């Protein structure tokens, strides 16, 4: 995985390679992973929020009910 194992060799080469992160050449796969994480987050967040809003809406609290929950820590 290591792109650089010896800095002296790396920096004294005729042409210094700029990309020094691990796994050079796997950028495409990393992008697909990022895409899946991004879209997946929206799906999970949407499901969780829909459930939360649905449950809360069913309780039909009044506009001032929350005041009884104000805490003094």
């Amino acid at each position, binding site marked *: 995985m290591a792109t650089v194992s010896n800095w002296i060799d790396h920096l004294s080469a005729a042409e*210094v*390679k*700029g*990309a*020094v*992160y691990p796994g*050079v050449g796997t*950028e*495409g796969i*990393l*992008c697909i992973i*990022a*895409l899946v*994480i*991004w879209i997946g*987050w*929206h799906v999970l*967040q*949407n499901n969780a*929020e829909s459930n*939360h*809003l*649905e*449950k*809360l*809406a*069913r*309780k*039909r*609290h*009044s*506009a001032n*009910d*929350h005041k*009884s*929950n*104000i*805490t*003094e*820590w």
Partner: protein
Amino acid sequence: MTDQLGALTTIFTEFYYWITVVLMFLIHVGFCMYEVGASRYKHHQHTLMKNTMLIPLVTVTWFLFGWWIYWAFPTGPGLAPSIMNESAALITDESAFSAKWYVPNSSLMAVNLGDHISGVFWAAFLLFSWTAASIVSGAVIERITTFAFGICAIAIGSVFWTIDAAWGWHFDGWMLKLLGYHDAYASGVIHAIAGGFALGILMVLGPRIGKFSSSGEPRNIGPRNPWLVTIGLFLIYTGFWGFYAACNIPIFDLGPEYGMEGVTYWTATNIYVTPTTLSGITMNFLMSLSGGLLAGYLISNNDPFWTYSSGLAGIICASAGNDLYHPIQAMIIAMIGVVIAYKLHYWVERKFKIDDAVGAVAVHGYAGVAGLIICGFVLNGYPSSGYSVGSMWVGTDYAPINPLGMFIGAIIMFVVLGLIPGWIIAKVLQGMGKLRIPREVEIAGLDYDLMEASRSDEKAVSSSTR
């Protein structure tokens, strides 16, 4: 970097942008504080989380495609040829400033010893993206779902503002060439577009419950924590200062850049690579802030919320031309912008029943549009670029700054890339039933469950100490 001067210039520029990014982070801190301060107690935590989560959402999408759009779209595509490759197509060739280098799987989008600038420049633009999304966030508090806001934040932060930046905030942008568009510190490319986008969403989203009486009279739902709002706005001012610095290139030799043989002219430049000074723009920033505060204090009958917001609106209004204005011009322009924004806010609220919870459409949208139009008159005749000055509508030259071009530019920013996309996206989300929280939840408060759980926790702790 093989010689010391080249290395010093590169590392200085890298560090300069890095500092601006850190300073601009304060804009987001300020927006979070401001929004929470403006929201009601029962919505506080959700309001905060909604704004906070735009940070990762816009960042990830900015990495995946937002940055690429900026470099690919200066030509329209199809509206004016690029000065780099003389083609009007998307810029994806092998040229130095091509989008080809900024696809997410490019080796330049990472730690790369051959490139010390792309990452910090990417980050500076990303912070502008957060700002665009955060402006929208304040307007829609207490009734939009986090899901819907996330989609809207990505749309404005990683798509539409970056298209406008490519068109009107890029040295090769078609709006400079055809219209003579000039917007040095983003009156239009950040503020007018974000204000317009927010207005488009608000038209579909509707007002908060209770905002208007049955006869249609607006009621004031003032900030619940004025101190948080105050500190938030002070932080936004501070971050905005960093934003001004980030909009400049700190050190650049314009002689060879403009093709002037034998001429060396080192200077700071604005984003269009035309000369300005950090010294001058600092005066203009402070004078336009002052003009905004002075006008806002008077017009709002010393209402703190509006006075602080007016300081911001003043800077926003003067920003389009603050690279060249005289400081007193900047102050006067700021005052004019504040009066327009304040009056329009209440007129639109009454006439169209638009509930803009924090005045974002006014402070950013109306002041931004006013700033662009005023800039067209005050800077009429200045070159929009240093490369080759021509006349309007000739795609190969750069038109000079002029009132008509700036007016059309303002429409493009506020309506074409702001209001219309915002309205369409909100309509789609509404059609999916995902735009607005249920009425019962809005009445109970988004934080009801969290507060209830907090009370239970407190009871449990109290009982254990008996």
